[in-house]
């Protein structure tokens, strides 16, 4: 299979403009004749459904929650980047582009990233116009902060609830289109299959989660915005219902899955407290702007933090990375936390955490200012840990947070399956091997508000799309397939809890396909996963009936898919014998322990083709070219 990324050529700054001009248009009067299926209502899905509705398309929009406003984009705290240069500190589209390519460790596509940086400025304008209450300065202009390893202040924020406010902005625009009847909403629906007719994506099969009915929907194109696969690890900062099912089922129908091994571990999460834990809570890394990360110099030092004198503390990020200090990118901060804990210098009861200390910030800024900046995060920390971070340092530890990998898409955000488009975290395209802070919101909204409205028109106008109804054999076959999957889960009638098996899978992935991976650990994971999958299909207990709300059945279906997907994740990590971004292979590091890329052999996107459950998937490579930003060893010293 030849992968054509359809990246435009020519000077990078003019590529998107020229591409927009070269794309075909759909006549305004004809737009309502096209039905577009959008799955997901997070930033990417809601913004896509709303903008496509505004253009006049007939949009069907699906989500698993009771309301589109629940999607997990809502939990993003820190902010959204935009190259506005409002602070006059030297920012530009080119700099945001450069930082993103470098931050992604030279494993993303230059054309896509440049477009993302260009569109970032339009996103802010659009969101302000919607009434998103971004933070302001006293003069009334928008406030910015420096965030997640950037040396300019380009991050826009709404307290610690930026994701919430941006999502509600998109949700409100979506509900306006629902009112206008251009968008029809289908909440509490889970996509179980993608329907292909004549090789094109023409519909989906969903389960109505309220009454259990298998429903069929036909359209002219399918847009997946179904998020990432972080919950494969069981414990992650993702919502508990987040899953890979829609993307995985599309993969099984032929869509290539790219770079699954690029997983992001977020450095500032609240540490695990016990076996019962269902998810991990992230605290915005904006905390690292003012908090100082440290551990005791001595191994096993169990004194309370206040009793450890300054001279016996190791502010290891400031020591090792003097120019970036506590603001090094996420992967670097996370790996260093793991390293000091592995050395036996971790803190807290579990010894699996490091301090994030605000004592100096409180001295410098005063409690009130710290409260204004981070009050909600301190409050959240107190709720969960029962500790007051104004008095004792926070304890933090890394957790799976975001997944850069996803379904392969070209410059038009279309997968290799004609008509199947993939947006936001569900695709792989813009973040390379590591996503920079405050860039996920930017990508989700760029894809939905400003990319797909153009590229979908080009697809529709340039493809023959004969009318297809849900009576077509392909729909019947896919619906039967979905029903059989459900029957199979209910028929196992074993004795083991679904959560118990999911937790076991999570432990395999965290230990062996986690923050640091080796050939041996990956082979161990690949040996263990099929066994666990068999165990699931022989001994899982899925009670209840298929014909009403059955959360056990929903959960079991998602875990079943993760048990297949996990192997792909490990295959990809094994195949990539280099370290880059969020993928750290211990065999490939510099003498001082930093990630060492192997550009000669691995400057490509690994796009995997499904070949059957438990079978080695087939690798297709999309070579990456760097004309603008020349790969160097990332250094934050």
């Amino acid at each position, binding site marked *: 299979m030849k992968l054509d990324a359809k990246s435009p050529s020519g000077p990078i700054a003019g590529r998107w403009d020229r591409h927009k001009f070269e794309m075909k248009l759909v006549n305004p009067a004809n737009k309502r004749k096209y039905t577009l299926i959008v799955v997901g209502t997070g930033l990417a899905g809601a913004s896509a459904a709303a903008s496509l509705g505004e253009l006049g398309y007939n949009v069907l929009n699906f989500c698993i929650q009771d309301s589109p406003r629940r999607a997990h984009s809502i939990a993003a705290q820190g902010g959204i980047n935009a190259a506005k240069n409002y602070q006059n500190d030297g920012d530009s589209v080119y700099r945001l582009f450069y930082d993103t390519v470098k931050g992604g460790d030279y494993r993303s596509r230059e054309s896509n990233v440049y477009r993302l940086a260009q569109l970032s400025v339009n996103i802010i304008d659009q969101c302000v116009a919607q009434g998103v209450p971004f933070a302001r300065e006293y003069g009334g202009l928008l406030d910015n902060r420096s965030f997640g390893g950037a040396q300019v202040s380009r991050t826009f924020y709404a307290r610690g609830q930026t994701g919430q406010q941006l999502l509600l902005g998109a949700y409100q625009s979506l*509900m306006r289109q*629902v009112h206008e009847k251009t968008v029809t909403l289908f909440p509490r629906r889970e996509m179980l299959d993608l329907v292909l007719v004549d090789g094109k994506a023409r519909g989906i099969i969903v389960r109505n989660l309220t009454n259990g009915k298998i429903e069929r929907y036909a359209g002219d194109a399918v847009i997946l915005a179904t998020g990432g696969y972080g919950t494969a690890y069981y414990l992650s900062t993702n919502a508990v219902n987040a899953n890979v099912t829609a993307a995985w089922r599309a993969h099984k129908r032929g869509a290539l899955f790219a770079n699954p091994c690029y997983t992001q571990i977020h450095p500032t999460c609240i540490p695990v407290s016990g076996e019962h834990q269902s998810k991990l809570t992230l605290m915005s890394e904006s905390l690292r702007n003012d908090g100082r990360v440290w551990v005791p110099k001595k191994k096993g030092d169990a004194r309370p933090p206040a009793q450890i004198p300054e001279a016996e503390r190791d502010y290891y990020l400031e020591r090792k990375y003097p120019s970036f200090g506590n603001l090094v990118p996420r992967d670097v901060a996370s790996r260093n936390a793991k390293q000091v804990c592995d050395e036996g210098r971790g803190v807290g009861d579990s010894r699996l955490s490091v301090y994030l200390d605000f004592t100096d910030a409180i001295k410098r800024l005063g409690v009130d200012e710290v409260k204004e900046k981070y009050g909600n995060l301190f*409050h*959240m920390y107190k709720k969960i840990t*029962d500790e007051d971070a104004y008095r004792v340092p926070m304890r933090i530890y890394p957790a799976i947070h975001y997944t850069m990998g996803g379904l392969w898409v070209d410059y038009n955000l279309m997968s290799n399956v004609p008509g199947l488009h993939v947006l936001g975290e569900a695709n792989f395209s813009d973040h390379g091997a590591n996503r920079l802070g405050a860039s996920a919101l930017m990508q989700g909204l760029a894809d939905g508000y400003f990319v797909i409205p153009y590229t979908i028109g080009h697809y529709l106008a340039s493809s023959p799309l004969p009318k297809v109804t849900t009576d077509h054999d392909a729909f019947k076959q896919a619906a039967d397939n979905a029903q059989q999957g459900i029957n199979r889960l209910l028929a196992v009638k074993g004795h083991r809890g679904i959560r118990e098996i999911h937790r076991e899978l999570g432990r395999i992935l965290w230990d062996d396909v986690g923050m640091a991976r080796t050939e041996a650990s990956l082979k161990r994971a690949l040996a263990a996963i099929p066994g666990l999958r068999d165990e699931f299909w022989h001994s899982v*207990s899925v*009670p209840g009936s298929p014909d009403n709300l059955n959360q056990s059945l929903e959960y079991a279906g998602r875990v079943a898919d993760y048990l297949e997907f996990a192997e792909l994740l490990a295959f990809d990590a094994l195949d990539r014998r280099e370290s880059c971004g969020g993928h750290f292979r211990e065999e490939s590091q510099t003498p001082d322990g930093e990630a060492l890329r192997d550009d000669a052999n691995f400057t490509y996107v690994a796009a995997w083709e499904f070949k059957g459950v438990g079978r080695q998937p087939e690798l297709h490579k999309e070579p990456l070219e760097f004309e603008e930003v020349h790969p160097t060893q990332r250094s934050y010293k």
Partner: protein
Amino acid sequence: MRLTLKIWRQAGPNVAGRLVVYAADHVSPDMSFLEMLDVVNEGLIKKGEDAIAFDSDCREGICGMCGLVVNGIPHGPDRGTTVCQLHMRRFKDGDTITIEPWRAKAFPVVKDLVVDRSAFDRIIAAGGYVSVNCGGAPDGNAIPISKDVSELAMDSAACIGCGACVAACKNASAHLFMSAKISHLALLPQGQVERARRVVQMVTQADAEGFGSCSNEGECEAVCPKEIPISNIARMTREYLRAVVRI
């Protein structure tokens, strides 16, 4: 900790429900309330019994998906806290805890502790937005907004749409929910164009959904996990009067 749970079980929207007693042993004080229910469910699932249905998603207090009435109080005893952020250290060994769904005519029970809150979406659809299409927005700094106004709008915009305000209100009124969105947009310059139309349409929709009226008891404010103040309702009332006088 060992607890006795009395949990509302209801197989579907049109059948009668009842409180069923469960024993929860081995409860750790560090568990969240929903993690405690996960453990109870895991026990039921292993025995092949239908798990207790309840909604949740982000489990960090921001998505608004969870909502249980715990001992008569929506989201439980802690102020400014969703039930997913309520921790078991708040309870004592040997306690009996009653767990029920939101109860309101406009929020019919789907199953057990899960209710249908789509009425809230329809209220937003009736006018809870600024009608700007994507593409034509002016520069973000073209609209200066004073920091005070912006902060006040943000206080209202913080609503997570969980519906606790409705569940707490003896009239099952959606006034706090509605007034939060109306305030957020009425305070900002972007919301001025549709200011009058918005409040009238949203209030009309809430009436049609079967939500009650406000009688100033303030239970909504007391249970709101985001501590949205009741002064929003006063603002909404002023907005409504202003709108109907002018229209």
